[in-house]
C-alpha cells in the first residue's frame, strides 16, 4: 500500500513554469460592483412627554460593522454595532445580502439570539480585564495582578526552559478549534506556532467533529455549498442534526423549501426542535441509525429505484471483488509486480475486465468511462498470478447479498424499532425526489459508531444519484478560502505556488474544459490532498486523542479491560501502538518526553475533553506551566497559571471564518478599545515572539532542539513571526488589510472598503484548501452546489478507488467486520447501565461561551437541566426540576431534570457545554464519559486512510453513554 503518506518534497526554484500560468486566477471576475450604502438623515421626533424616553433610547453616536469573529459557531453573520457613549450599546443585523437568484430567498437577516446580546456578554462579570498570575494552588482561585511585561517574561522563559531541556515540541499550543478566525488574531497565533515549531494540537477529530465515515467513503469530508442551495431541494433529511438549534441563521431556507414543495424528514430518536416543522419524523432507537439507513438502501436496490448511471460511474459498486478474500481484485493479483491500488470492473461492452477509471493506480484523475460499460451483475473466474484461480463479482452483488442477509426493512425492525412500512415510505420518497439531500454535519460524529451511520447515509445519497444535484447530496459544511489569510498563516495552509504547479503535469482535470487558465483548478482533490498531507508532515501537529493517550494520562482509562471493544480482535492499545509505530499517527512530543508548557487560547479543555477528572489527575499535575488567553473566565482558565486577557470581539479587527454557507465574507472593525488591560490576540502573540528572542539573548541561549529533529535558532523567532520586521504587533489593522488585499475571491478589497460593507461579497472561485472542499463551481448569480466536479466534470474522488467507496478492505476494517457498511451495537448499548446519556449542540450558547450569561440563563431553567421521558422519571420517583445524580462506572454528576414527552424512553439528554463550574463540585457531564476511541480511526497506509492536520484521526464519543439516574441526596 504505497500510496498514502506520500511526503511531498518542498522544492526550491521551481517557480518559473508557474508564473505564466499563475496570474490569471488571481484576478477577480469582471464587473463586480459592491453595493452603495446610502445614508438617510433622520430628525429626532419629540413630543415633549413620556414617549421621548423611548425615542431617546433608540439613538446612537455611530454604527460600526462587526461580528462574533472568534466564536466557534458555524455561521457568519454581519452585525451593525450601535455605539453610544463609548460602549457598544446594542447590535442589530447588517442586512445587505442580496438574493443570488430571483427564485431563491435572500440571506437576511442572518443572526441569532446569542449574537444579539454579545454586547451584554462583554460587559459581564465573566470578563477578564488584567493579566493574572496564580498564587495559590492550581484552580484555587487565588490570583495576583501582573503587568503584561511580567506575563510575557514568565511565558517566554518557560518556553525557553522547555526548549533547552527537551526541545521545542514540549511546548504545546492548543487553539482547540474554538478560537479560529481568518483575521489577524489566528494569523498571529499560527505565525507564533510556526516561528517556534512548537507542537500544535489538532482537535478537530478530538472534539468529535470528524466525519470519519465520510473520510472513509469520499477521502474528504468538508463538502457543502451555500445554504440557499438547500432551498432547491425536494426532499430534505435532517439526520443526527438539529439545525433549529445550531444553524439559526440558515434554517429558514429549509422551512421555506417546504413552501415550494419540499418534504422535510427528520431521523432522530427524540422529537427535536428541528422536528417541529417536519413532514415526517422517523424515530429509530438510539444509535441504530446505520441499520435503518442500510435497510432503506436495501429497499431502493431491490426495488430498482437506484440511479443506474450514478452507481456505475460514481461508486465502487461495479468494482470486482474476490469471493475468496472479500477484497478487491487488484493488479498485483493478476500480474507480477502489479500495483496494489489498480482495480477492475467488468466491461460489458467488450466482455472483459478493464482497469477502473479514476482509481489511484490508474492515474486517479478521471471517472470518464470512455465507452466502458461497467457490469454490476455477473460472476467470472480469474487466473491469478500465483497460478491459482478466484471467482470475482461486482461489489454491487456482494453488497446486495450483504444487505439482503442483514438489513432488509423487516430485519432491521428488531434493532431500530422502525416499522418496515416506514422504511419503505422513506426509501421511496428519497429515491423518487428530484433532488434529495441529507444534512448531517460535524455534530453528527459524536457517537462511537457515527462513522457507520455516515457510511449508510453516503450509500443512500450515492445510489440515488443525489450527489452534485442542486439541492441534493450529503451536506456537511465547508469554507471559502481566503488566500491572504492562508498565505500569511504558513505553508501548511497555503503551499507555495511552485510546489502546486509541479503537480500540474500529473493532473488532467482541466484538459478540454477550458479551465486551464486557472492552474489551481487543474489539480484534482486527490493532488491537493497529497500536497496538504506532505506539508502537514513537516509540522509537529498532533491529533488530540493520541496526545491524551501518551501525554494526558488517558492510557489509564483506555487500556482498562472494561473499555475494550469486543468487536476488535486485539486490545485498543495494540492499534494505537501499531499506528504510531507505522507513522500513521504522529505524536509530538514523542511519548518518552513530557509536556512542559501548555498554552490554550479560547479552548476549554476541562469542559470539553472526555473525563476531565483524568486530565486534572495527570496532565494538569505534570505540566510545568499552563497558560490561557481568553476574554472570559472559562473553567479551564480558572485552572491556569498565567491568564492573558484578550480583547472581546467588538474590540478588535477581525474576519469571521469564511463558511461557505453564504457567499459573503464577514469582517469586523474595532468599535471600541479593548476593556481594561486586555489586548488583541494579534499583539499578544507578536509580543511573545519578540520576548522569546529578547529573553533568549539575555540568557545566552541560541540553538535548541526544534520540531521533527530539526534545529531551532531562537534568535529567528521574531523575524519569522514578523516577516523580518514587515509585520508590527501593534498593527492588527495593517495585517487585516494585507489579508484582504491578497484575497482575489473578495476582489482584493481593502480593509477600509470592507468595513463599509461588513459582509463582502465573494466574487470568484476558491481553490481546494485544507478545509475548503466545496467541490463545485462558484457563480455570483447562482447558489453554490457541492460535488459537481465529480458528478458533472467526472473528476475522480480522492479515494484509493477514485469513487465513493463502500468497501474498505484495509486489514483493520476487515478484522473488525467493517469492510462493508454495517450496524454495530455501541459500548453504551452494551453497558450494564440502563439509560443512555446523550447530548447535542445547544440553542443557548456557542459551546461554553455565553453558557453563563445571565440574560440567557433567565430564558432557560437557569441551571443545567436534562430532558427525560416522563415514564423513566416516574419509575425512579423523580419529579419535574428535581436535582438528579447521573452515574456509571467511570464518573458522576448532578443536574436538574425536566420531563418531556418528546424524549425517547431510555434517553437522558443534556445539551452540551455547560461550564463545569455550573455543576455541584464542578463535576460536569463529561465526568462519566470514558470515551474510548474507535481503533479504525487510527488506520493509515491506505489511500484515503491517512492522517494530516484537520483530517482523519480518532474522535471522542461523548454521546450514548450508559448511565443510571437517581434523585440526588
Amino acid at each position, binding site marked *: 500500500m504505497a500510496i498514502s503518506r506520500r511526503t511531498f518534497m518542498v522544492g526550491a526554484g521551481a517557480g518559473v513554469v508557474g508564473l505564466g500560468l499563475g496570474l490569471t486566477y488571481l484576478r477577480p471576475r469582471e464587473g463586480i460592483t459592491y453595493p452603495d450604502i446610502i445614508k438617510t438623515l433622520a430628525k429626532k421626533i419629540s413630543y415633549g412627554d413620556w414617549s421621548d424616553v423611548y425615542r431617546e433610547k433608540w439613538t446612537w453616536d455611530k454604527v460600526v460593522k462587526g461580528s462574533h469573529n472568534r466564536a466557534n459557531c458555524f455561521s457568519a453573520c454581519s452585525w451593525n454595532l450601535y455605539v453610544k457613549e463609548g460602549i457598544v450599546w446594542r447590535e442589530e443585523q447588517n442586512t445587505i445580502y442580496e*438574493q443570488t437568484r430571483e427564485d431563491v430567498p*435572500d440571506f437576511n*437577516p442572518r443572526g441569532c*439570539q446569542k449574537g444579539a446580546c454579545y454586547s451584554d456578554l462583554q460587559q459581564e462579570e465573566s470578563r477578564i480585564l488584567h493579566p493574572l498570575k496564580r498564587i495559590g494552588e492550581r484552580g484555587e482561585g487565588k490570583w495576583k495582578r501582573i503587568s503584561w511585561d511580567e506575563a510575557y517574561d514568565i511565558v517566554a522563559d518557560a518556553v525557553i526552559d522547555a526548549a533547552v531541556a527537551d526541545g521545542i515540541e514540549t511546548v504545546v499550543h492548543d487553539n482547540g478549534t474554538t478560537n479560529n478566525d481568518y483575521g489577524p488574531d489566528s494569523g498571529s497565533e499560527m505565525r507564533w506556532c510556526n516561528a517556534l515549531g512548537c507542537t500544535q494540537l489538532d482537535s478537530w477529530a478530538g472534539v468529535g467533529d470528524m466525519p470519519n465515515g465520510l473520510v472513509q467513503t469520499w477521502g474528504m469530508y468538508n463538502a457543502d455549498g451555500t445554504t440557499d442551495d438547500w432551498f432547491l431541494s425536494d426532499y430534505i433529511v435532517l439526520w443526527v442534526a438539529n439545525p433549529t438549534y445550531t444553524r439559526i441563521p440558515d434554517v429558514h431556507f429549509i422551512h421555506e423549501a417546504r413552501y415550494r414543495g419540499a418534504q422535510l424528514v427528520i431521523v432522530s430518536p427524540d422529537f427535536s426542535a428541528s422536528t417541529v416543522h417536519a413532514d415526517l419524523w422517523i424515530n429509530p432507537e438510539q444509535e441504530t441509525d446505520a441499520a435503518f439507513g442500510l435497510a432503506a438502501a436495501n429497499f431502493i436496490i431491490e426495488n430498482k429505484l437506484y440511479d443506474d448511471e450514478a452507481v456505475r460511474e460514481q461508486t465502487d459498486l461495479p468494482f470486482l471483488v474476490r469471493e475468496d478474500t472479500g477484497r478487491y481484485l487488484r493488479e498485483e493479483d493478476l500480474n507480477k509486480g502489479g500495483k496494489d491500488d489498480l482495480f477492475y470492473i467488468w466491461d460489458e461492452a467488450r466482455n472483459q475486465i478493464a482497469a477502473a477509471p479514476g482509481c489511484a493506480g490508474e492515474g486517479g484523475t478521471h471517472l470518464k468511462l470512455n465507452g466502458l460499460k461497467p457490469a454490476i451483475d455477473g460472476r467470472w473466474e480469474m487466473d491469478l498470478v500465483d497460478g491459482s484461480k478466484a471467482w470475482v463479482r461486482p461489489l454491487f452483488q456482494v453488497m446486495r447479498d450483504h444487505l439482503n442477509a442483514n438489513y432488509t426493512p423487516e430485519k432491521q425492525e428488531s434493532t431500530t424499532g422502525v416499522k418496515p412500512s416506514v422504511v419503505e415510505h422513506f426509501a421511496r420518497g428519497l429515491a423518487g425526489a428530484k433532488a434529495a439531500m441529507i444534512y448531517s454535519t460535524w455534530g453528527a460524529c459524536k457517537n462511537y459508531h457515527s462513522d457507520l451511520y455516515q457510511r449508510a447515509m453516503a450509500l443512500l445519497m450515492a445510489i440515488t444519484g443525489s450527489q452534485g444535484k442542486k439541492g441534493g447530496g450529503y451536506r456537511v459544511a465547508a469554507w471559502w478560502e481566503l488566500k491572504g489569510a492562508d498565505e500569511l498563516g504558513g505553508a501548511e495552509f497555503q503551499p507555495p505556488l511552485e510546489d502546486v504547479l509541479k503537480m500540474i503535469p500529473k493532473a488532467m482535470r482541466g484538459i478540454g474544459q477550458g479551465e486551464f487558465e486557472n492552474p489551481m483548478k487543474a489539480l484534482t482533490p486527490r493532488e491537493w490532498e497529497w500536497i496538504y498531507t506532505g506539508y502537514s508532515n513537516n509540522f509537529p501537529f498532533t491529533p488530540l486523542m493520541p496526545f491524551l493517550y501518551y501525554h494526558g494520562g488517558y492510557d489509564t482509562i483506555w487500556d482498562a479491560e472494561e473499555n475494550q471493544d469486543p468487536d476488535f480482535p486485539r486490545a485498543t492499545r495494540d492499534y494505537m501502538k501499531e499506528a504510531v509505530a507505522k507513522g500513521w499517527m504522529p505524536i509530538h512530543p514523542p511519548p518518552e518526553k513530557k509536556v512542559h508548557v501548555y498554552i490554550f487560547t479560547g479552548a476549554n479543555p476541562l469542559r470539553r475533553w472526555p473525563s476531565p477528572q483524568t486530565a486534572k489527575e495527570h496532565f494538569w499535575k505534570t505540566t510545568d506551566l499552563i497558560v490561557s488567553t481568553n476574554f472570559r473566565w472559562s473553567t479551564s482558565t480558572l485552572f491556569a497559571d498565567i491568564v492573558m486577557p484578550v480583547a472581546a470581539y467588538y474590540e478588535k479587527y477581525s474576519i469571521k471564518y469564511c463558511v461557505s454557507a453564504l457567499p459573503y465574507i464577514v469582517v469586523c472593525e474595532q468599535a471600541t478599545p479593548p476593556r481594561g488591560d486586555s489586548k488583541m490576540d494579534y499583539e499578544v502573540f507578536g509580543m511573545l515572539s519578540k520576548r522569546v528572542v529578547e529573553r533568549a539573548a539575555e540568557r545566552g541561549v541560541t540553538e535548541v532542539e526544534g520540531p521533527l529533529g530539526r534545529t531551532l535558532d531562537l534568535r529567528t523567532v521574531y523575524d519569522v513571526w514578523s516577516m523580518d520586521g514587515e509585520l508590527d504587533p501593534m498593527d492588527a489593522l495593517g495585517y487585516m488589510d494585507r489579508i484582504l488585499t491578497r484575497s482575489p475571491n473578495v476582489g482584493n478589497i481593502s480593509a477600509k472598503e470592507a468595513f463599509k460593507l461588513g459582509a463582502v461579497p465573494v466574487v470568484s472561485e476558491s481553490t481546494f484548501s485544507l478545509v475548503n472542499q466545496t467541490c463545485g463551481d462558484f457563480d455570483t448569480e447562482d447558489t453554490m452546489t457541492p460535488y459537481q466536479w465529480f458528478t458533472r466534470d467526472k473528476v475522480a474522488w480522492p479515494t484509493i478507488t477514485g469513487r465513493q467507496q463502500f468497501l474498505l478492505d484495509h486489514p483493520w476494517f476487515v478484522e473488525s467486520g467493517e469492510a462493508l457498511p454495517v450496524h454495530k451495537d455501541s459500548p453504551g448499548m452494551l453497558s450494564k447501565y440502563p439509560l443512555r446519556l446523550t447530548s447535542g449542540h445547544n440553542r443557548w450558547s456557542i459551546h461554553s461561551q455565553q453558557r453563563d450569561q445571565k440574560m440567557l440563563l433567565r430564558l432557560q431553567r437557569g441551571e443545567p437541566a436534562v430532558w427525560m421521558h416522563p415514564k423513566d422519571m416516574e419509575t425512579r420517583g423523580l419529579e419535574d426540576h428535581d436535582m438528579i445524580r447521573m452515574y456509571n462506572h467511570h464518573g458522576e454528576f448532578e443536574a436538574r431534570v425536566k420531563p418531556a414527552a418528546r424524549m425517547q424512553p431510555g434517553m437522558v439528554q443534556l445539551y452540551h457545554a455547560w461550564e463545569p463550574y455550573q455543576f455541584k463540585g464542578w463535576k460536569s457531564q463529561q465526568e462519566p464519559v470514558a470515551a474510548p476511541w474507535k481503533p479504525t480511526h487510527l488506520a493509515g497506509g491506505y489511500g484515503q486512510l491517512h492522517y494530516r492536520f484537520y483530517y482523519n484521526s480518532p474522535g471522542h464519543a461523548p454521546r450514548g453513554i450508559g448511565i443510571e439516574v437517581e434523585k440526588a441526596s
Partner: protein
Amino acid sequence: MSKRQLAMVMDLNKCLGCHTCTVACKRLWTRDEAMEYMWWNTVNTMPGKGTPRDWEEMGGGFKDGKPQLGHLPSREEFGDAWKYNHEEVFSGGKAGAHLEIQGKKPEWGPNWDEDQGAGEYPNSYFFYLPRICNHCSSPACVAACPRKAIEKREDGIVVINEDRCRGYRFCMEACPYKKIYFNPDKGVSQKCIFCFPRVEQGVSNACARQCPGRIRFVGYLDDENSAVHKLVKKWKVAVRLHPEYGTKPNVYYVPPTSPMKFDADGHLDEKNPRIPEDYLKFLFGEEGLEAKRIIDKEMATVRNGGKSEILSVLIAYKWSEMFGGFDTDPATIEWTEV
C-alpha cells in the same frame, strides 16, 4: 378609534423558538434594572403553561362585550430576573461554590417549559408561539384603566402613557394575554410599544426585523400591497390567537402544520397531523382550522408542481418586502438635531 392599524403576522411554520426576537426587544427597550424581569416579547413551547404561568387561565378580556374579571399575574408567575454568584465562583477556587441562582430557587421562568411539549411518545408534539402585545382594536387594558392612561395612537399602537399611569395595574388584570408588566421603580405599568420610535422612522420592529426565522410580517392592515393585508384580509391564512377573548388582537398567526402521526402499530398515519385539531381550535378558533386547511391545500399544490401565491409571500423571497414599506435600514440613519 385609530385611523389606521399597524399589524403583525407571525408564521408559526417558520418559528425556531430561538428567542432572537425576545433578546432584540430586551436589549433595546427593557434593560434598566427594574425592567430586567420583563420580556415584552415572549416565545413559549406549546402546549405549555407559558408566560406568565397558566396565562390562558387568568381571565380578563370581554365576553359578549362585557369586561371579565382577571387575575393579576405575580412576578413569580412571570419569572424573576434571577441573580447569580459569578464573583464568588471566579474567586472561590476549585470545587468551591458553583454558579447558582441566588436566593429562593425559582419554580417558573419565561421559558420554563421549553421543548417539553405534549402527546405520548412517539406521537409527541409541540411548536413555538411568540407573543407580543396585540395592540388590540378593543383593548381591555384601555377599558380598564381608571386614569385613561392607555391610548390607542393614530397608527393603532396601544401605549401606556407613563406620565398619566399611577401603577394601579387594572390593565394587568384586564389584559387576557397578560402582556403588561409592572415597573416597581417607576410605579408604572409597561409593555410592548410596537417599537413606535422605529416605526415613526419607517423602520420595522426590532423583534420582526431581527427574526432569523423570517416569520414576522409588519404593515398597515388596510395597505393592500402589504403582506399583512394579503395574509389576513385577502387570503385569511393568518388568524387571531384566542379570538374568544374579545379584544380583537392585531397580531395574527399562520397556524402550524406538523409531522404525520404513527398509528397504534407504529405505521404512518398519513391522514392525521400530530397537533390535534382540538388544540388548534382552542388556540385559534374555527378560523384557525380554516386557515390551516388553506395552507394544507396550497402545500399540496406546490408539492404537485403547482404554484401558490400565498406560499410565495410566506417564503419572503425578498426579506425587505415583509415589512409593508417599513423597510428603512436603521444603520443608514444619521441623527440630525431638530
